[in-house]
């Protein structure tokens, strides 16, 4: 356990990966959105849905990938086991997701209180996903952020274990799987079924599903990690 904490500290030594990076991206993204919405000629008090919040989620995939791919070799040289390195990094990922989820929730409360930053901007409020009470927003943010880091970690591990070709195959497999799903829906012309699935599924239910997916990714990452060589 104390080794796990040391690994988490090790991961935070280069602050950019886990701390500065995600928030810098989000801050820039927020500023750009505010400027665009404020200057938008057609915007007169209409609600503006930015969707730009996704930047921090996407960035956390990078965080997870760098957290493994760039940090692992030196940690192993210092006598850290793969297991401890993975556990410490996963622990940090979950903690970071919880704290950042709370941060996003607080920003959402401020956004509500200030009437969308005085611009009726919906930056931290996302219809369906982040629209409920604060604790549900926190839970959803927490889960989704953790999912992104866990997914990113898996990319990092695949790269470390099977190099660039492995990483490319891994990405290609995911693109293929997604295409297959879309194709099946398209061929069966059952888009309404997809719509029904999401309307019957509450955000709490979706969060539960995504939490389960996060656990699966973390378990898969651990299994892959065990035979990584450096």
């Amino acid at each position, binding site marked *: 356990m104390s*080794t796990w904490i*040391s690994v988490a*500290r*090790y991961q935070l*030594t*280069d602050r*950019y*990966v886990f701390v500065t990076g995600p928030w810098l991206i989000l801050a820039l993204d927020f500023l750009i959105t505010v400027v665009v919405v404020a200057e938008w000629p057609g915007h007169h008090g209409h609600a503006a849905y930015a969707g730009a919040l996704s930047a921090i989620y996407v960035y956390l995939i990078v965080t997870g990938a760098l957290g493994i791919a*760039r*940090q692992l*070799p*030196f940690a*192993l*040289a*210092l*006598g*850290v*086991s*793969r*297991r*401890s390195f993975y556990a410490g990094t996963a622990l940090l990922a979950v903690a970071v997701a919880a704290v950042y989820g709370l941060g996003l929730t607080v920003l959402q409360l401020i956004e509500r209180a200030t009437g969308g930053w005085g611009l009726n901007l919906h930056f931290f409020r996302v219809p369906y996903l982040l629209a409920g009470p604060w604790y549900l927003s926190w839970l959803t943010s927490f889960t989704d952020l953790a999912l992104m880091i866990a997914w990113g970690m898996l990319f990092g591990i695949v790269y470390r274990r099977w190099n660039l070709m492995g990483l490319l195959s891994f990405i290609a497999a995911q693109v293929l799987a997604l295409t297959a799903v879309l194709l099946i829906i398209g061929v069966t012309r059952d888009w309404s079924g997809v719509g029904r699935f999401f309307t019957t599924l509450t955000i709490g239910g979706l969060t539960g599903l995504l939490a389960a997916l996060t656990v699966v990714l973390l378990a898969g990452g651990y299994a892959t990690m*065990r*035979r990584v*060589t*450096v």
Partner: protein
Amino acid sequence: MTPAISVAGLSRRYRGQLALDNVSFDIEPGSITGLLGRNGAGKTTFMRIVAGHEFASAGTVTVLGACPVENETVLRQMVFVREDQAYPDFRVRHAVQAASWFYPNWSHELAGALLEEFGLPPNRKVRKLSRGMRSALGIVIGLAARAEVTLFDEPYAGLDPVARQLFYDRLLAEYAEHPRTVLLSTHLIDEAAGLMERVMVIDRGRIVLDAAADDLRGAATSVSGPAIAVAEFTAGHPVWDRRRIASQESAVVAGALDETDRARAAALHLHLEPLTLQQLVVRAAGTPVAVPQERTSA
């Protein structure tokens, strides 16, 4: 006594190519062993397996009596400094600090002193360091860790002679004060020869020479002088190599020479010179046949 490192029947195969071929030996605790060999001979692969970074295809490795793979107890007592170490985006002081968290015997004083002696700027990014300085950083970590098993793989690539001497001096001082098991691979053989108590030469994945360094000193002697005198002297001795230029000849005689031999050589006005460790290693790792052979010069 439990060997510090024990290897039995160790093989590692990469896509049909044998990087390590049935390697077996024990290394006693509290010794400095030189692991020598050509590029691609299998030195790094061997150390990576000992450190648990790579997996064996066959055979077993134990470090301090247990399998090192994912074994935190063993790993805590082992440090691996490699030439091609990839670092995170750390500053020098970050790398040293991070290392201190994982080694129970870490010496902050020693790390600080070494950083200063090697002239490493603590705030410089590791990726901005020159090759030599990066090597120096590895040495600082490897020595300050005071790990019971210390693996140095080409630790001083790119280091200047002054810094190399500093490494040798510091390693010996540390070793005397805090004995540990050191496995050192290097190409600068004669320079490091004084450090090594045991020498192992690995070639194409096999151990081709394994001997105490003392036994190797004087294990072969180069005899040179007039060809007729050399021929007379070497008769009855196993000869590894003969080179002749006009009437002068130089031959390498295997085996130790006794006082009678030396007296004879002096009488024949022959020049005797023991083969250096490097010359012995070149012979062990560079020739396909290890059996002493006679070569006739036409």
